[in-house]
């Protein structure tokens, strides 16, 4: 499980999400939703260990030591001269590091992962020739090889067509059935209602966190919108909870 204890995360020095407490249970499938600027991406970066919490604590169970994170805008050079297969094989970085070789089994697994995301036969294609949807499939194939107990996905379906979204959602559901913990930032509420049992509704603080049908009510969503409109980029850190 990944537990948040009175967690405050900051973006460029200003608090973005305040006093968040709760637990992502092992094997849970959670959507993080909320208006733009609600602090969703910042929270995910902290969960991924890419940024430090400004205050509060983050606890991970031993099984969640290795977390993979798919950023909203990966810093990947889409025109880099590299093949689809080599891109997917980078998912084995945790096993091969700087120097170890890739063995035949790993290569086979990579081809299998490509077939799983619907890109069989694309192995030798340069990534520059792929569409946005195909490239997102490649990144999902890489996530398969990373084989982590927890996956953090930041808006994985933005600018992705319906069919790719459907295929990749099926993959997320398969990870959920495997007992992996999946946390995804999403905007399409219908999609969340249909596929994600748990939802965390954020608007700089937790509006609600729990079963999706309880969280995604009209009243909660309206509150979230109002909260984010009251966003103050120069907000100071508030006093510790105990002192309030």
């Amino acid at each position, binding site marked *: 499980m990944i537990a948040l204890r009175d967690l405050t995360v900051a973006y460029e020095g200003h608090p973005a999400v305040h006093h968040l407490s709760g637990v992502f249970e092992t094997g849970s499938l959670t959507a993080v939703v909320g208006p733009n600027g609600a602090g969703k991406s910042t929270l995910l970066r902290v969960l991924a260990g890419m940024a430090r919490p400004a205050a509060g604590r983050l606890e991970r169970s031993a099984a969640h030591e290795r977390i993979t994170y798919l950023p909203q805008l990966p810093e990947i050079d889409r025109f880099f001269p*590299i093949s689809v297969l080599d*891109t997917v094989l980078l998912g084995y970085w945790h096993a091969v590091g700087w120097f170890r070789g890739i063995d035949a089994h790993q290569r086979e697994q990579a081809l299998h992962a490509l077939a799983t995301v619907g890109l069989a036969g694309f192995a030798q294609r340069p990534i520059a020739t792929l569409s946005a949807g195909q490239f997102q499939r490649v990144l999902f194939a890489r996530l398969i090889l990373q084989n982590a107990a927890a996956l953090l996905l930041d808006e994985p379906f933005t600018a992705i067509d319906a069919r790719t979204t459907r295929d990749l959602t099926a993959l997320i559901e398969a990870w959920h059935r495997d007992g992996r913990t999946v946390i995804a930032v999403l905007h399409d509420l219908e999609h969340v209602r249909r596929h994600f049992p748990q939802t965390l509704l954020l608007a700089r603080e937790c509006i609600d966190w729990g079963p999706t049908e309880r969280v995604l009510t009209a009243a909660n969503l309206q509150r979230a919108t109002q909260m984010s409109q009251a966003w103050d980029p120069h907000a100071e850190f508030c006093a510790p909870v105990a002192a309030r």
Partner: protein
Amino acid sequence: MSVHALVVAPFTEHGEVRRALVGCLAIALGGGPIGTLLVLRRMSLMGDSLSHGVLPGVALGFLVAGPSIGAMSLGGLVAGLAVALLSGLVARLTPQHEDASFAAFYLTSLALGVLLVTRAGRDEDLVHILFGDLLALAPDGLIVIAGLTSVTVIGCALIYRPLIVACFDPQLLRAAGGRPALAYALFLGLAVLELVGAFQAMGTLMALGLVMLPAAAARFWARAVWSLMATSVALGAGAGVVGLLAAYHADLPAGAAIVLVAGAVYVGSVALGARDSLRARYFPRAHVRA
């Protein structure tokens, strides 16, 4: 004039032309991988900054030990690494991008170098340091060039994977604990080694000629990282041979002749290359034949 007299005799009959050729081949061999990585990292102009940044170190070496290859190389190495590390640190620790921080440090470094050389040396020393003198390359200079470029090539081979992933997907490397900052620092170190080697032959102003121009041209012929590097080495070596022959027969300054040939190879590649060239854009092969 026979083909032998045109192409072979200059190298067999003149030791200094032969040494210049060996120097060019060594620089092209190390320049292929370094130039390709600089292009892929979008750091082509930063390489230029680095090569000018070595000047104060070279000048200091010259001041202390006179025109000694060893002292000038060591000084250049230290100055180049200092410029690379300081610029890299500014880019990592502040929001300023590499291009600006490199420009700031190399301009400062260049000015300091010019000041040092003109204070102590004569004008021809400055000309020598700025433009090099390929045909005056002595055997010990050749050994320095060969040694530095060998370390560059072997270093690139050893850390090939992290170097490439740090260009392509630095986020993945960071998330997986792959030390992208270390890979970046090592790469800058290898680039400085190559530049100090190239500087011996071509001077600080044109040291990058056999590094960047072939790498920039290779992009129009190859499309995997390894083949870009190999093409770049081949184009660089070719430009070295042709440039030297032109310099020999027409009595031109050798370094400038070689860089001009490399420049012509680049323009030719942009116009006629197999991939993404102007020819491919405006005169594409028929898409489908019935």
